């Protein structure tokens, strides 16, 4: 049996390991354009600052591929022939035959829709190559941890529109006036690494407050305040209209004026990395047989078994459009969901009938230096919504927001402390009341030792109406 996996990210590698643990003799080939080794994409920011090296962010020791007997192809997949069951590769490499195929190609950055988005000095922060570009702009090169092994090994087998092509550098370590566009998680991480490098970035956010996908205005104001304290110029409600410069970026023009910039990180989201699957694209792309069905966002449409519209082809991770709790299919774009999907897909590749069942939503993050935990529904127009909000300002600063639908607790949005989301999720699943949750809140605490526990005021906190939202229609928090 020949298993081919497109993608060396968490979804792809988890699937490969799952297959290998079950089937010691099958041939498993991993195609990856971006890097030789599986690495944690979520950790790119720390490689930039120098907190971690490239080796640090690889979750497995480097002998993994040899130990597991994975074949590794460092090239771009440029199309699929689902009739003859083979994957086309760039660079004149022979097509790769498969019996079962997993597409785990992840996301690519959404390009800036403005004029000048391809100027030198403009880039993203999603791939290894983006990291190398930003390191070159800000620091003049990688840290003493060094570059990843064989960073350019794919250049003989790639395509011009690949997100893994090296980006041209403008400032070579001389960037002084950086800008970041887009107030999501990747945007704030880009801001953080620039701050860590001693720079004072301008942060353009289209919405009226920071990260409305996840935070309400009160929560957001605190994060904006933290950013301000670190010297970030946060521009809320400001729409970028053009990136200006001849060859090299010089200014960002918005609906309120112009700002001088010599570096700009565009972080306005990511899109499924699936253009190479579309039929009828020019060279070097090719296709054959019935194409895999993509949804409007570009995600590979799959069912609960992560099976695509074509027999023997599965998809997992950021590029897979999976059914959500409301029945609508969307990509999930999270680390742990990609990992879980990879495991389910691995079982499917073995011929099992495992299902991927999405439960209550949860995640955590860190915004500048503020801890963030969320569970359930927090900014999606909950029916009969009410909010319990409490701001703690003592030895610890924190905010606690509990979202109710009628009498029932349906969501938590928690800043400044650490929480065990498993307990929160259980309360949501058990349809607990606000009184119950408040009485038991310490059970969900995950604060480090010696931190004084959160003292919930016995009474006096009014319930608000629905939290304001700028999003119409159901996409819960945590979109990168």
């Amino acid at each position, binding site marked *: 049996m020949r298993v081919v996996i497109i993608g060396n990210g*968490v979804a792809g590698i988890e699937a490969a390991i799952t297959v290998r643990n079950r089937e010691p003799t099958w041939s498993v080939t991993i195609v990856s354009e971006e890097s030789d080794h599986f690495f*944690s994409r*979520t*950790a790119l*920011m*720390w490689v930039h*600052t*120098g*907190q*971690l*090296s490239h080796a*640090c*962010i690889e*979750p497995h*020791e480097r002998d993994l591929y040899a130990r597991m007997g994975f074949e590794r192809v460092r090239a771009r997949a440029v199309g699929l022939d689902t009739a003859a069951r083979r994957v086309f590769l760039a660079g004149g490499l022979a097509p790769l035959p498969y019996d079962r195929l997993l597409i785990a190609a992840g996301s690519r950055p959404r390009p800036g829709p403005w004029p000048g988005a391809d100027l030198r000095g403009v880039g993203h922060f999603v791939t290894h190559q983006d990291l190398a570009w930003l390191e070159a702009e800000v*620091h003049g090169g990688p*840290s*003493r*941890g060094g570059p990843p092994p064989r960073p350019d090994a794919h250049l003989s087998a790639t395509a011009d529109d690949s997100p893994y092509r090296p980006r041209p550098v403008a400032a070579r370590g001389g960037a002084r006036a950086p800008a970041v566009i887009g107030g999501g998680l990747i945007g704030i991480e880009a801001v*953080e*690494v620039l701050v*860590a490098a001693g720079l004072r970035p301008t942060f353009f956010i289209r919405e009226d407050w920071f990260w409305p996908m996840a935070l309400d205005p009160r929560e957001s104001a605190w994060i904006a305040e933290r950013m301000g304290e670190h010297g970030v110029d946060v521009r809320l409600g400001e729409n970028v209209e053009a990136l200006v410069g001849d060859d090299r970026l010089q200014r960002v023009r918005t609906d309120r004026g112009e700002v001088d910039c010599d570096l700009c990180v565009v972080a306005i989201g990511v899109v499924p990395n699936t253009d190479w699957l579309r039929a009828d694209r020019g060279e070097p792309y090719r296709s054959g047989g019935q194409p895999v069905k993509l949804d409007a966002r570009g995600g590979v449409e799959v069912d609960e078994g992560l099976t695509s519209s074509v027999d023997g082809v599965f998809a997992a991770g950021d590029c897979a459009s999976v059914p959500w709790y409301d029945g609508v299919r969307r990509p999930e774009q999270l*680390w*742990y969901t990609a990992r*879980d999907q990879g*495991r*389910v897909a691995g*079982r499917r590749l073995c011929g099992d*009938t*495992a*299902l*991927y*069942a*999405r*439960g209550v939503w*949860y*995640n*955590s*993050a*860190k915004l500048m*230096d503020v*801890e963030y*935990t969320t569970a359930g529904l927090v900014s999606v127009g909950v029916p009969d919504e009410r909010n319990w909000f409490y701001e703690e300002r003592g*030895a*610890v*600063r924190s905010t606690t927001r509990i979202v109710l639908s009628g009498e029932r607790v349906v969501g938590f949005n928690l800043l400044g*402390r*650490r*929480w065990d*989301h*498993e307990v929160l*999720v*259980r309360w949501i699943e058990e349809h607990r009341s606000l009184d119950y949750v408040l009485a038991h809140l310490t059970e969900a605490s*995950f*604060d*480090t*030792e*010696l*931190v*004084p526990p959160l003292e919930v005021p016995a009474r006096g906190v009014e319930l608000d109406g629905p939290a304001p939202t700028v999003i119409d229609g159901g996409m819960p928090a945590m979109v990168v």
Partner: protein
Amino acid sequence: MDQQGQNGLMRTFREPWRSRGALAYVVAALLTGFYVVLYWTEWLTPAAVALGLRSKWLLYGALYSVAMVGGAAYYLRHHGNSRYNRVRIAVNVGVQVALAFLLPLIMPLFGGPEAYLSYFWPLSYDKLWPSTLSSLPVYLALYFIVGSLLVAPLLAYRYGKRWYCSWVCGCGGLANTFGDPWRHLTASSTRSWRFEKVSVHTVMFVAVLTTFLLVLDAATDGATGTFHWLVAGGQWWSVKQLYGLVVGAILAGVVGVGFYPLFGPRLWCRNFCPMAAMLGLFQKLGRFRIAVKKDMCISCGNCTTYCEMGIDVRSYAQSNQSFTRAACVGCGMCAHVCPRGVLRLENAPREQADKARVRLPVVDL
């Protein structure tokens, strides 16, 4: 404001002195040289006398305290936003200055012995040797016997070996303060773990055996001449002298501290300390553990990188597995640097620790 996590981003791999640049080698050479001079020459004695200290060992205690205080300032600047870190380092430095410098300095002035109360057997390998015990006042002999054989293991069972290795011990204290800039250099490969398991338990075995032989020698009152000569003789290769030379001087001092800038600050604690090995066994049986929050790990590797004991914390975290490792000194750094708040140090009774974990997003048909 109290925060729990790493405050600001560290530039570790962009600072050559912290990432095996030329300066790191110079510092390592200087430290190693210092220990050679300390152990095998009397060059420091005149300096000690000039400062009004009775011996080079008191001068060493003073320098050690200064290094710890300076290192603590560095540590707190980087990690002092967390209360656990602040309290732990304050206690550790306090113990060093009070019990390992001031008390030995002052006690003889009042006719007492120069005793180091924060060091127990088998780290302080001669504490239970008959020759030492018989030279101490009875209350101190009892203090060391009960402390080493009863209190230390019991506390390790209850709170983990961190009570000693990260709150009291001077070796751990120096590692966590002066050595903090280099904590990420500890190897975390599987190979290094294999080496550690063999080496640290070997030293523990040798420490116990040496003590046993010396007790036997004292019990028989040196009756069998050859045995006494082999075990407790004055020539450098008798069991007693050899242990002191290899473990006490070379491994704990020269290698243990000298190589901080190249291999991380816990080289000694991890691979050679017999006390760490012994307390580790009690920790493994006891209540201390690192709890892992389900599914929140993003496999970033901060915990593994900054674990000074080279434990691959990430491998547990990314498989949702709470764990107790014998090597863990409970420094709390993994929990501190974790950007997703996945880890927590706990002293939980077993039943509670093993509470059933809920659903997985994978459904089997």
